[in-house]
């Protein structure tokens, strides 16, 4: 059959990349305006972000590399590192599971009080971390609601690891849910409906369609959640009790060392947290670079 060119079989044309600024002279500014604005932004960045970061490492290495490692491998410091890792290893997976469930419920279903749930998810962002810690003191403290029952059963929450985990989980809860909700809202439910119409059951839809669609957003959320979980100070400080070697997390350990005028040790431990921040930033940029389109719906950090 002699049929005309089938346009549906053609590949979409590749458009050349054209930087907006060269094409559109209307939106460019005079050279001196551009230079001075860029310079102002850079100086601000240097002064407020880069300088303190460098200062941390300079202070940490002031007494030499030997003293730096000594401060890190010291017993109490190692205990603090172990505790911080343990806490985030519990808090982050908890928030991973509940964050996905919350985002899934909010975006793929409609029910009453949905708006209330969204507001509640944001609660930890809006209250001061100290208040978040105090909530647990009020519940589990000696004079709290559950305090007497707890001490009867010899189960310690406050001034022990469970309290720190609870406070950290509370403070970091919004990170994953907040990352996923706009992404899943933008994706809609067409994919899920398509999978259902092809015979998949709910479980298969979740594992084969929903989860792969959000995987990069989820990883991004986990990174941010983890960074905050390891760095949380306020809420943890209230519930921890600052028992050296037992309930001191890394940020608390830094504070104690600093208060004891042990500056180089304090900065040595702090430098570990700073390196965690740099690593998170690096991974985050990598994700944005590789999977920017999929994350675009949530790009606001």
């Amino acid at each position, binding site marked *: 059959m002699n049929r*005309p060119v089938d346009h549906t079989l053609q590949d979409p044309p590749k458009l050349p990349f054209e930087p907006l600024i060269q094409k559109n002279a209307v939106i460019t500014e005079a050279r001196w305006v551009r230079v001075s604005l860029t310079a102002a932004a850079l100086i601000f960045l240097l002064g407020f972000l880069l300088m303190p970061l460098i200062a941390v490492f300079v202070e940490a290495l002031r007494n030499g590399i030997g003293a730096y490692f000594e401060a890190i491998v010291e017993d109490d410091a190692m205990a603090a590192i172990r505790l911080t890792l343990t806490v985030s290893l519990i808090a982050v997976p908890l928030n991973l599971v509940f964050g996905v469930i919350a985002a899934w419920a909010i975006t793929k279903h409609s029910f009453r009080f949905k708006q209330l749930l969204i507001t509640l998810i944001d609660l930890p962002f809006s209250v001061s971390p100290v208040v978040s810690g105090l909530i647990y003191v009020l519940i589990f403290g000696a004079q709290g609601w559950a305090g007497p029952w707890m001490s009867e059963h010899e189960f310690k929450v406050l001034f022990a690891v469970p309290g720190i985990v609870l406070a950290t989980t509370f403070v970091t809860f919004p990170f994953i849910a907040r990352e996923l909700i706009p992404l899943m809202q933008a994706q809609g439910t067409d994919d899920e409906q398509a999978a259902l119409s092809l015979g998949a059951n709910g479980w298969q839809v979740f594992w*084969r369609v929903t989860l792969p669609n959000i995987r990069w957003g989820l990883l991004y959320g986990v990174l941010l959640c983890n960074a905050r979980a390891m760095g949380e100070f306020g809420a943890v400080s209230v519930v921890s009790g600052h028992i050296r070697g037992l309930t001191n997390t890394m940020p608390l350990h830094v504070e104690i060392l600093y208060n004891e005028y042990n500056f180089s040790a304090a900065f040595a431990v702090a430098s570990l947290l700073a390196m965690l921040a740099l690593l998170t930033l690096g991974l985050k940029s990598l994700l944005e670079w590789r999977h920017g389109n999929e994350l675009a719906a949530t790009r606001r950090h």
Partner: protein
Amino acid sequence: MDIQIRNIHKGFGSFPALAGVDLDIASGELIALLGPSGSGKTTLLRTIAGLEFPDTGQILFGGEDTVALPVQQRRVGFVFQHYALFRHMTILENVAFGLRVRPRHERPSDKDIKRKAAELLDLVQLGGLEARYPTQLSGGQRQRVALARALAIEPRVLLLDEPFGALDAKVRKDLRRWLRELHDKTGYTTIFVTHDQEEALELADRVVVMSRGRIEQVGSTDEVYENPATPFVFDFLGNTNILPGEVRDHHIYVNGGPQPIADTAGHEPGPIDIYVRPIDLRIADAGVPSFDVDVLSTQRTGPVVRCEARAVTSGAVIEIELPHLHHDVPALKAGARVPLRLSNFSVFARGKPISRQALPDVVANAPAEYRERARAG
């Protein structure tokens, strides 16, 4: 598989999306659901698929009532307007999805699944692109993948929601012809939703015209076009002039026309509206029943000459369309008074005029939330 739809009602809140729909579809038919946004056509399609549940009514697939069956068990091939391809899978895996999610004892072997998926991709003329991802395809190609994916489960009925809505005009035309060929080759009972009357009339065996949750008329292209059952159907299927007229002594008169233009076919005496398309108006020869109009303006638009005129007695402004080489064209000069005859028309008892809101206001590329709103009212 033949399908019977019996008295389906479905409301979203207080808005009746479907207000009593009955429809019989024969096995192997290609049916178009045509209507403006908010007419309930997409809701009806989703109800047949099991993506919406009716408040009352029955949907029978080959005699078996499926209303209680969830979408997974209905075995319907549903093609979404925006394709809903799984973006993290190659197109081969997209097509294979429906086979891979089957329970283990019904699932073909991995080799058979791949072979079947590759065959289907050949059928939709995408052989060789198996390893691509959906984002690497053009819109028309994605549409074909979505179709192959729906065919993989050997559906009892194929349902397409505005299948060409998101494509440009040229691709749309090619795909339309291609879909017709595919339907003739495979013989699946197919129902598709469209707001484009040309698409529906060209592609479908029968057209179901819907408005406000009800079926206005079901029929072949000729039937709905030549004998529209309601003013809505007439108006929705093309440009319309409405001339006031009258039924008197078993004859139909255009207001101001001295002779009757036709005998009645059972219309009550009284005022009527005569519906006539711009292309069905011609200059009358002497002695033929006619009515006079004053030509207001004439405009050539490509191959068609479009002329605006005012009826002398009733003052109704009407539109006339002629091929630009037609011998009537020279007479239609602005300011001229010419007699017109109706070569084809419909008569409806004078009711309320059709409100303009009921007419098509759908944008071809309407975003999903717009359609949601249209569905919800």
